[in-house]
Structure formats: structure tokens, C-alpha cells
């Protein structure tokens, strides 16, 4: 096939990019080479629109062992232990084929983690769907949940947390972000940087097929009417093979034969081989006839661009081939020496004794295009003047029941019951909590982890929204008594070629960065997903933040369920009654304008650290952060979990009661304490200048608010639980 501009454009390259390739090569590339360029220079692999902004992120900290740039980030959790973690998007494929798209998303992120020598110990996910009324939503949700479960359950890794959101902006572009945490000995971490010349390059895992060709390019384009035709670009997953690959890799890693290892993810053999060589400042030579293929007559172009799953590339020490092969034979996996490292600093590919590719690696990696795209700032919207007379018709408990049954607030048990969340026997806090918590096997330590996003706030004001997501994530980790250590981010945005979308990206990243710096909560890994746009309609800006915190003694972990009658309920942090962009404003008052709640990073940090002090002193019986739906929604969720009731005191503040109970001011927690500890708690809060309100107490079953008719906790449980079950099964 002759390569010309038209063919290059069909490969997703721009005219100027194609010209640049010809200039750098001093010739026109052949079709295999063009395929390689399109794979390496697409948005998904090259980060060409985001790179300049991502560079500004706060990525350093005393617990950071490895920041962005590797397969995943690594943090120190004391002793010899380290946690490897990352979040990644699989949005485009999941919309086209929800089961396989989601399944391979989970498979891909787990490979990123065990490539570094870590055994995965927990999975999480953040999934966003269109409006529940949209005809596609139900099937997409069902398929995605089945796919996530199908892969993670078979691997035997517990799925311990996540979040699910519905919003019409995802009607044409759902989001599927998968996150994995793995445990590794900090002296036995494996990296992707190749070293040494004439070292054997080994291919292990599944055979290569024609599935997933151009997957990464597809993920770098917007959708149109013809998306059904893109189904063949979706990869097909086989979790059984991945389980074998995991065990085989960990067995090989226990020895000393691996120099570097890299999973074949987006852009398959192309990006894995080039990345390993590029990081080691080496060349690489591959004989494509040696690549195990499962289909006949595959061309070099297809072999290089296939995104078949469950494959790894390894650079081995000389002479260790037999030892390594024995392990892969035991696990019934393919093992082939397909090439070697060289000193040419080129990628050279051979097929049927012909050289089919010769490209200097620096051209593909360092010379990849970088764009400083134009972007537009989003102004902070004016505050809405709500007519408080409208509130008089409303009853707190009635509004509360309605809020608890909203799609975005309702219980997601229907979803997480389909995920094995207890395998490995260390899950001490299950999904449906502030954070999932798993013990570090055989120790007294545990890690808490949570993934969060707030597209509504980010859409209203990206800078504030970006800060808010990081803070909310930090609060979730604090609430269960863990010290937050670091985050990973999955940045889901629209079309970066549009100034508005690019502006949302830039400002969200700025917000994330600001909060991350202030809270000393560095970003250690992440992923960008642009072009979440269909027929000119883009998604709301949706950065998802996954955080990891450490609990030194897992027996001191805090849960959110209310514990005992007569215990006191306190709100930690100041309530101003910010209802613009709140669940109450949007869903009850039907007002979608206004600014998101203000983020005060000083208070955020101080309040969180003070809550941790209270926990360390053993003064807290349960805790929960205040987020969507405000104080009363937060207390209700604690009551639902504990199957308890609560009684709220008469308000002592000069704020409208709806603003007070449903406002979404930030930096707040609900804590349950024993009456005998009140003085001690008050002293610690006052000594640390933290504002608090004593607002009520725990009851057996009754919910008593103001002079409104008493309702029972069972009513709230029903309101909260029924929506999703009815929506999916009835």
C-alpha cells in the first residue's frame, strides 16, 4: 500500500504531522512505519495536548518512590512495603462494546500494576453514564458492571470501592475509569527502562490476533454516527489468561533474571518496545516472524498495532531464557524470544527476512508533537438569589427522602454486589463506605482507598471543581482514620481542540495541583482521556481522583455506621449554607446555575488533621464526610448503615434550615461521639481552632427533625435502596 497524505489522515494524523514525519525520516514512511507513528503520536499515547500542563503537577513527596512516567506510581507505606497504584480510562471502547470495553479496562490497569512486581490487592472504579431515561443507559450500565465483575472476580482481586454517576452529558460518551492497588516489597520494584546491549527481548502471554488494531487512535477521536463500525477496534479480554500471566510474572520476578518489563497496553507491541528502548536510550530489533500469532497471515502492520490483551514484553539477562521459559510453560503461556536490544537507538523490524521498519527512536518519542492549545478561562458564576419563601412549602424529611432516592445519591449495592469484594480475606471496609479498606496481609497495617469526581462543580467552575475533587477524596480517606498519602488522576474531558474544553482541562488541572500541593497529597500516576464528545456534544469536565491512605493499626479504623443510642452527633467544620450547585438546588429547586462551594484549603487541612487527632485519641465512634446533599444526607447515610435513627437539635444558627441541612459547604465531617467524651472532643477542636456544631444524637429507629412528623429509619433505607434495583430489574 502506498503511503500518502490521504492515508496518513485516515490514520488520524494531521497534515503538518505527516509532513514532520517525512522531514524527520528524510523519506516517506512505509505503511508499517506510518502505523507506528499514528500509534505513538495519537493523543492517547503521546499526551500531546496535555503534556505542557501535566508537567506542572505536584508529583513529589517524602513517601513517593515513583511518580508519573512509569507503568504506575509507587508510594512508601513503611517497613518494607510499598503500594503501586494507578487509574486509567477505557471510555471509548466501553461505549462501543460495554462488556469487553470495561473488562479490558480492568485487565489493563491490573497489568500496569503487576508489571512493576506488585500483587494487586484491590480494584476500584469510577463510572459515569447518561441520563437514566436515555434508551442506552440501562444496557450500558448492565454491560459495564458485568464486564468489571467478570474480569476482576475471575482474577481473584477484590473490588472494594467506586462511584457511579448519571448525567445527560454522558449520553453519548460514558466514562469507565478503573483503578488498581498492588503491594510490593520496596526493594523489589520492576521498571520499564531497558539496559544493556544484545539482551534478549521476550514476548510472553497470549497470542497476537487482529483485535484492537487502532484502539488507541480510536480513543483519540470524537464519535459520530458510524461508531458501530468501530467495534472491531475494541479488544477482547480473557481474565483466565491474565490470572496465569500474573502468577507466572510474579514467579519469574522472584528470581533475578528480569532487566525490565512492560505490559502491552495501548498500541501494543509498538509502544511497549519503543518505550523500553527509549527509556534505556537504546535501540531494539524485533523479528516479527517470531511473534506468536493466533491468526494466519498477519502482516507486520497488524502485528505491531494489535491490542490483543494479556501480553508482556520482557528484557532478560543473557542466559536466563531457559529458566524463564520453564515458568511460562508451567502456566501454559506463550514464551518467545523475538529480538534483542541494540546500540543503534533505532527500532528495526524484520519480517520474512526483509527489514520492514527502521526509525530512530528519538523521532517517535522525544520528537512527538506537543501542542500548547488555546484555552478559555471560565468565570466564576454569580451567586443565585434564592427566594426563601419557596422553601416554606417544603418539609425537611420529605425533601430528604427524595434526595436519598436520587440516582446519584441512591445506594449502589445493586452494582457492587456483583463484584467480589471479599476474596483475599483482607477487606475490612466494603464498598458503600467512605473508602474501601484492605489489610496489608499478615501485618497490623491497612490501606484505605477511594475514587471521587464532581463533574457538576467542575462544570460550574473548573478551577474550584478541580480543588474540590482532591479535597473530597482526602476527606473520604480521613473519615476512616487513614492518613492520606498520594493520588492518581484520570482526566476525562471533551475535545481539546475547542478552547472551552481545553480551558476546562487547564483549570481543573490547576485546581487539582493547588489542592495537591497544599494538602501535601502528590499525584503519582494518571491518565488523560480527551475527545469524549459525540456529534459536537462534549461531556462535563470530569477529573476522577483516586487516593490512597495508610492506617497504621487497622483495629483503629473508623466506619461510618452510627453505633449507639444517645451518642452525640457533631458537625466538624463551618456551615455557611452554600446551596448553589447543590443537589438540593438542582433537583428540588430546579436551579442549575451559580458557583460551586468555596474551597478553603487551610480549613480543609486543619479540619482533616484535627479529625485524625480525635481518631488517634480513640474519641470517635463513627465518622463520615459531608458531601452531596449536605449535613442531613450525610447523617442519614450513617444512620442507614447502622440501622439507627437520629434526633436533630433545634438550630442555634441564623441560617435558613434548608440552607443549613442541605448546603454543600466543604471541609466538613459528621462525627459520632460518646457523651462522656464531649469535653475532651470540644477541647481538641477548640485548641485547633476548628468550628463545630453539636447538632443531635443517635436514636434507636426514629428520625426526629424539628416539629415534623417522625419518620422511621426503614423509610430512609427504602428510599435509598430502591431506586437502582427498580431501575435495573423491574
Amino acid at each position, binding site marked *: 500500500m502506498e503511503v500518502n497524505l490521504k492515508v496518513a489522515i485516515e490514520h488520524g494524523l494531521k497534515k503538518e504531522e505527516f509532513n514532520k514525519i517525512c522531514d524527520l525520516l528524510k523519506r516517506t514512511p512505509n505503511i508499517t512505519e506510518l502505523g507506528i507513528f499514528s500509534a505513538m503520536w495519537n493523543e492517547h499515547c503521546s499526551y500531546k495536548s496535555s503534556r505542557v500542563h501535566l508537567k506542572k503537577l505536584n508529583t513529589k513527596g517524602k513517601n513517593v518512590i515513583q511518580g508519573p512516567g512509569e507503568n504506575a506510581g509507587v508510594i512508601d507505606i513503611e517497613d518494607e512495603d510499598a503500594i503501586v497504584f494507578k487509574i486509567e480510562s477505557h471510555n471509548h471502547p466501553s461505549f462501543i462494546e460495554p462488556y469487553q470495553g470495561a473488562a479490558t479496562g480492568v485487565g489493563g490497569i491490573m497489568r500496569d500494576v503487576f508489571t512493576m512486581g506488585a500483587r494487586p490487592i484491590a480494584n476500584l472504579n469510577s463510572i459515569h453514564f447518561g441520563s437514566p431515561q436515555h434508551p442506552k443507559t440501562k444496557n450500558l450500565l448492565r454491560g459495564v458492571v458485568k464486564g468489571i465483575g467478570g474480569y476482576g472476580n475471575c482474577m481473584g482481586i477484590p473490588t472494594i470501592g467506586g462511584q457511579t454517576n448519571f448525567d445527560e452529558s454522558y449520553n453519548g460518551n460514558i466514562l469507565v475509569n478503573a483503578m488498581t492497588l498492588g503491594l510490593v516489597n520496596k526493594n523489589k520494584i520492576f521498571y520499564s527502562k531497558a539496559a544493556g546491549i544484545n539482551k534478549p527481548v521476550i514476548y510472553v502471554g497470549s497470542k497476537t490476533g487482529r483485535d484492537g488494531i487502532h484502539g488507541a487512535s480510536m480513543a483519540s477521536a470524537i464519535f459520530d454516527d458510524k461508531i458501530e463500525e468501530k467495534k472491531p477496534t475494541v479488544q477482547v479480554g480473557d481474565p483466565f489468561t491474565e490470572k496465569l500471566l500474573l502468577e507466572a510474572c510474579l514467579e519469574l520476578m522472584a528470581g533475578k533474571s528480569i532487566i525490565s518489563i512492560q505490559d502491552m497496553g495501548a498500541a501494543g507491541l509498538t509502544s511497549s518496545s519503543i518505550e523500553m528502548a527509549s527509556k534505556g536510550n537504546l535501540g531494539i530489533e524485533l523479528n516479527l516472524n517470531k511473534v506468536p500469532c493466533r491468526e494466519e497471515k498477519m502482516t507486520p502492520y497488524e502485528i505491531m498495532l494489535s491490542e490483543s490483551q494479556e501480553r508482556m514484553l520482557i528484557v532478560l539477562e543473557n542466559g536466563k531464557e531457559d529458566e524463564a521459559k520453564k515458568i511460562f510453560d508451567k502456566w501454559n503461556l506463550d514464551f518467545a524470544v523475538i529480538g534483542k536490544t541494540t546500540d543503534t537507538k533505532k527500532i528495526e523490524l524484520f519480517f520474512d527476512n526483509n527489514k520492514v521498519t527502521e526509525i530512530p527512536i528519538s523521532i517517535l518519542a522525544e520528537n512527538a508533537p506537543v501542542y500548547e492549545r488555546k484555552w478559555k478561562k471560565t468565570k466564576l458564576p454569580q451567586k443565585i438569589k434564592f427566594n426563601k419563601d419557596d422553601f416554606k412549602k417544603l418539609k425537611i424529611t420529605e425533601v430528604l427522602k427524595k434526595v436519598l432516592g436520587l440516582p446519584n445519591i441512591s445506594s449502589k449495592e445493586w452494582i457492587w454486589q456483583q*463484584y467480589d469484594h*471479599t476474596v483475599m480475606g483482607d477487606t475490612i471496609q466494603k464498598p458503600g463506605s467512605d473508602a474501601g479498606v484492605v489489610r496489608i496481609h499478615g501485618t497490623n497495617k491497612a490501606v484505605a482507598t477511594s475514587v471521587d469526581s464532581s463533574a457538576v462543580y467542575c462544570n460550574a467552575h473548573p478551577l474550584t471543581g478541580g480543588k474540590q475533587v482532591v479535597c473530597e477524596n482526602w476527606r473520604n480517606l480521613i473519615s476512616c482514620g487513614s492518613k492520606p498519602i498520594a493520588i492518581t488522576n484520570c482526566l476525562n474531558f471533551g475535545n481539546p481542540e475547542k478552547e472551552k474544553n481545553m480551558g476546562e482541562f487547564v483549570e481543573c488541572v490547576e485546581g487539582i495541583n493547588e489542592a495537591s500541593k497544599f494538602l501535601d497529597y502528590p499525584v503519582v500516576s494518571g491518565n488523560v482521556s480527551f475527545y469524549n464528545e459525540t456529534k459536537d456534544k462534549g461531556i462535563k469536565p470530569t477529573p476522577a481522583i483516586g487516593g490512597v491512605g495508610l492506617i497504621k493499626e487497622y483495629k483503629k479504623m473508623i466506619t461510618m455506621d452510627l453505633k449507639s443510642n444517645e451518642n452525640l452527633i457533631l458537625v466538624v467544620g463551618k456551615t455557611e449554607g452554600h446551596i448553589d450547585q447543590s443537589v438540593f438546588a438542582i433537583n428540588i429547586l430546579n436551579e442549575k446555575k451559580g458557583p460551586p462551594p468555596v474551597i478553603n484549603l487551610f480549613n480543609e487541612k486543619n479540619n482533616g488533621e484535627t479529625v485524625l487527632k480525635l481518631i488517634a485519641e480513640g474519641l470517635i465512634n463513627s465518622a463520615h464526610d459531608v458531601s452531596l446533599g449536605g449535613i442531613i444526607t450525610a447523617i442519614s447515610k450513617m444512620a442507614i448503615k447502622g440501622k439507627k435513627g437520629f434526633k436533630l437539635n433545634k438550630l442555634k444558627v441564623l441560617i435558613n434550615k434548608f440552607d443549613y441541612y442541605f448546603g454543600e459547604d466543604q471541609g466538613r465531617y459528621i462525627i459520632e461521639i460518646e457523651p462522656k467524651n464531649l469535653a475532651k472532643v470540644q477541647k481538641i477542636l477548640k485548641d485547633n481552632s476548628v468550628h463545630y456544631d453539636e447538632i443531635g444524637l443517635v436514636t434507636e429507629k426514629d428520625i426526629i427533625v424539628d416539629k415534623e412528623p417522625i419518620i422511621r429509619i426503614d423509610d430512609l433505607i427504602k428510599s435509598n435502596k430502591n431506586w437502582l434495583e427498580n431501575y435495573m430489574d423491574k
Partner: protein
Amino acid sequence: MKSSVIIFPGSNCDRDMDVALKKFGFKNQMVWHNDPRIPKSDLIVLPGGFSYGDYLRCGSIAAKSKIIKSVIEFANSGGLVLGICNGFQILTETGLLPGILQQNKYQKFICKNVYVKINDKENKYFKNIKKEILELHIAHNEGNYFCSEDELKSLNDNNQIAVTYCNENGNDAEEFNPNGALKNIAGIFSKNKNILGMMPHPERMIDKCLSSNDGNFFFENLIENLK
């Protein structure tokens, strides 16, 4: 007491079972499916997971694996064989236990705590157990037990129905059946009760900080009965 846990490709509850057995005093060994024979054991466990990827049918390929011949010989000579979840599926596929495990009634994977009632104590597994109702955990997609009428009659006549799903008070009405299993069956014995297959996982419930520690009753009792 010596136990052996068999690892098939795709087993994923093997470590959890190893931890549980050791916690309660078993000297446990892990046995790879391709090993020529099983070391001398008082108990053989087929753990949960997705042996051979659940391809063809859950447990069907494992039931034809090399090691399974030794398991069958051991069982036929009266040795104790425990199959949990996928292990139960394998036992029905080998024919050591009657019936089959179909896909759950609501066609979904289910992961949650359940209560099971112990129906028969005249056996090595439950003799002298201190609790009648255990809170255990299920995590499966194919746990919907089914067998022919004749087989069911025979199970009943020989008291082979080991555990049934129920609520915390032991009420085993249909509404407490999580997966549509015939007669709420969660686990059954072989005729002479040396083989037990059950869907719930006692090995995941052995610590107070997990959501239940009723698995302790099961393992503590089992090792006592074997002494």
C-alpha cells in the same frame, strides 16, 4: 492434622483457604494440579476460583485434570474432601456429588453475606459444632443447585443436605434463597458424608474485623473432629 489444598490454573481462593486452615492448626500443603500425587492428608480441599477460566462449564475441565484421579481415589477410600464454591462445582462434575450448579436465578454474580442452617450433625464436618446457624459469605455466578427428583429424594433419605440458606433465625423460606437453589440447598454431602461441597466461603469469615467470624466455628470444629 494434615491438609492439602489443590491449586488449579485459575483457582483464586487457594491462599485464603491456606490461611484459614493454618490459623486453626492444620499443617497445610499446597498441591499443584500437575503434581503426580497428593501428599498424605487427613483432609483435601478443592478451593474456590475459576479453574481453567470456567471454560466449557464451571469445574468441568478440572474434573478431568491429572490430580483429580488421586482425589477420587482418596474420597472413595473414605478420605475427607471439602469443596468450596468452584470446588463444589468440580465435585459435582466428577460425579462425587450428585446434581449440578446452574447460573444464579437472577443471572448475576452475587457477593454478599448469607445465613446457612446446618441440617445434619452426624458427620465429621459439623458434629458438636457450637452454632446451628452460621453467617458466611457467597461470591459466585453459578451457585443455583439443581438435581433430579430421584436424586433429591435420595439426598433427603440419607440426610445428605448439609446446609441450606435461611435468615438469621433459621427460617429457610424461599425469600432467603440468594440464587434460586433447589430447596435452598447451599451444600451437600456424599452418601457416607466424607465429601462436603458447599457454595458459601467459611474461609473468608475468620476474623472479627471481617464482616463475620462464623467461619471459626466451622474450622475449629472440623479440626477437633479429626483429632
